[in-house]
């Protein structure tokens, strides 16, 4: 194991999959000559050439659709959205063409495509540039959605996504691109299955379900709560769809209390779905109502303090945990 950044981990995943399979190509805005808006694709143009690392005009709908078409005849496109906020102009291609093709064609055309890029609020980008799209995409049948929070998960999930024969969205966390973590050496194949959550910290009093940008928040809070003798178990979903129900249920069977901390909007957010499944399947295990911590239901303001107030954060999570513990 060695320590690398989340950005490097993604870069390694891309390089390894491009190396392994000549049907894989990377396409998006500024991915080639500019080395990626966030430098995730740094060095790839030099290594794999312009045929496989392809810059596009600002035409998300067009190149997302191009990727789906190329996938119909067996190529394995990796389509980068500079951020998933811009995937909204390509929404129809991602939710209508990619996931429906297999069903509509009676099983003739599966779409082995990966859509990736940073998702969720970054820092003071304002309402148009701060979209967390996981609940949109997870609600669409035929799509798979993963949300890595660590360099290791980022590398392992992206590689798995590229090898999956269905459309997979890898929702990266811009704020974590420079964060570091231990990852297996390059010569060791690292594949992390979709639909497997990961207990990032064991605990006995309360389960905190989190993913992507909320994982570091949850870990920070867990450490803090320990001093107050509250033992929190941190369950990192890693994949939103398929969802690892069992991991969630197993943890709650231990703690009987749960808080879900998510980065999307509250109304019909990911946490709502998880809450439904918990109460439906293990109603009697719950000693207190489930509480969610998410964004406030308001468009993202630019002002830094206001943005902080809108986002899920440590203070809110601490309060929520205490509420379920002392309920």
């Amino acid at each position, binding site marked *: 194991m060695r320590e690398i950044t989340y950005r490097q981990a993604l870069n390694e995943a891309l390089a390894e999959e491009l190396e392994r399979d000549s049907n894989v190509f990377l396409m998006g805005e500024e991915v080639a000559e500019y080395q990626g808006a966030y430098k995730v694709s740094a060095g790839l143009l030099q290594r794999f050439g312009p045929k496989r690392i392809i810059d596009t005009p600002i035409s998300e709908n067009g190149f997302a659709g191009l990727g789906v078409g190329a996938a119909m005849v067996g190529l394995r496109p990796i389509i980068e959205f500079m951020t998933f906020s811009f995937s909204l102009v390509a929404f129809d291609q991602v939710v209508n063409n990619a996931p429906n093709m297999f069903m*509509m064609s*009676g099983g003739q055309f599966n779409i082995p495509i990966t859509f990736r890029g940073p998702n969720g609020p970054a820092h003071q980008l304002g309402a148009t540039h701060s979209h967390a799209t996981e609940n949109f995409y997870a609600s669409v049948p035929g799509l798979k959605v993963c949300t890595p929070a660590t360099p290791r998960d980022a590398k392992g999930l992206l590689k798995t996504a590229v090898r999956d024969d269905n459309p997979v969205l890898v929702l990266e966390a811009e704020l974590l691109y420079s964060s570091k973590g231990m990852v297996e050496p390059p010569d060791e194949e690292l594949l992390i299955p979709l639909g497997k959550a990961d207990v990032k910290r064991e605990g006995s009093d309360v389960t905190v379900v989190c993913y992507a940008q909320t994982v570091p928040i949850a870990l920070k809070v867990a450490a803090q709560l320990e001093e107050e003798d509250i033992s929190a178990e941190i369950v990192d979903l890693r994949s939103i769809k398929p969802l690892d129900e069992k991991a969630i249920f197993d943890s709650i069977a231990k703690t009987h209390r749960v808080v879900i901390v998510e980065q999307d909007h509250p109304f019909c957010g990911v946490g709502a779905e998880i809450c439904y499944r918990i109460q439906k399947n293990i109603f009697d295990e719950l000693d207190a109502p489930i509480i969610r911590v998410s964004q406030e239901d308001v468009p993202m303001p630019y002002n830094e303090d206001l943005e902080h107030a809108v986002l899920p954060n440590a203070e809110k999570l601490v309060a929520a945990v205490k509420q379920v513990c002392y309920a």
Partner: protein
Amino acid sequence: MQPVEQRDEVEMLSLMLLIRRFEERASQQYQAQKIGGFCHLYIGQEAVVTGTIAAVRSDDYVITAYRDHGHALARGTSANACMAELFGKETGCSRGLGGSMHFFDKKHHMYGGHAIVAAHVPLAVGLAFAIKYRGEDRVTLCFFGDGAINQGSFHEALNLAALYRLPIIFICENNLFAMGTSVKRSTSLKQIVDRAEGYDIPGEIVDGMNFREVRDKVAEVADSIRKESHPAFLEVRTYRYRGHSMSDPASYRTKEELEKYRLDDPIIRLRAQLTREGKLTNERFDLLDKRAKETVLAAVKFAEESPELPVEKLRDYVYFNGAKS
């Protein structure tokens, strides 16, 4: 470079007859409520797809919108598989899961059957991208209607195809109407073909009621593309005899206009050409027409008797697990 085999014109005439008779039956079966959802007929436009198919290779890629029965039949999908799809049967070209607007046939390089206007044009560019990526000399034939050219996806796709110089022919089947909206009410241009200039893509106008003109023009363009990859645009002028879909009385146009085009019927026209040249007798024509009708009747019977996909199997069509296709 693999040569384009010459397709016999009489054979192509029977293909047009097959499409015509298939659509007439489909219409009748729709009224008899054997067919559900939306159903868009191709009657009147047969020469467009037939002429195109006659000019290209069987391994070239074909993709179109929701008015797709003719394209599948022309590509080689059996009348049985097409009718069964309309009936929603497991023996249908999309196993009864796609319906009239979503015909697919991988074996015959028919990539759909797409119902969101112009959303398949980027897909077509992706097919063409794959051809160039693999260094093949195929051509992608992307059919769409006159109504599709005002969608953003059309615009982005054409720019991408031109920028990457991809092997694709954009074939605009201009039948003068998008539902009830005539081209002059939808498009700020004297002629659709001019839009290709905005992307530096060569464009031409073709008489879509004339099988031979379509075939020869497509052959010429496809040939140039195979020599050196580039996109091309054809505005093919045609006409649909029926309403937009089965539910449309088409009261936005005059009987006279319709009659004018009927006189120019693509089938009558090719028949006349062949007869004049002594390549076709009336007896032969009647026989071909009789065969087309029989084939379609048999297809109805086949569809009727075919099984539906069992509900338990539906889940196998959400995610591909390596087992299928």
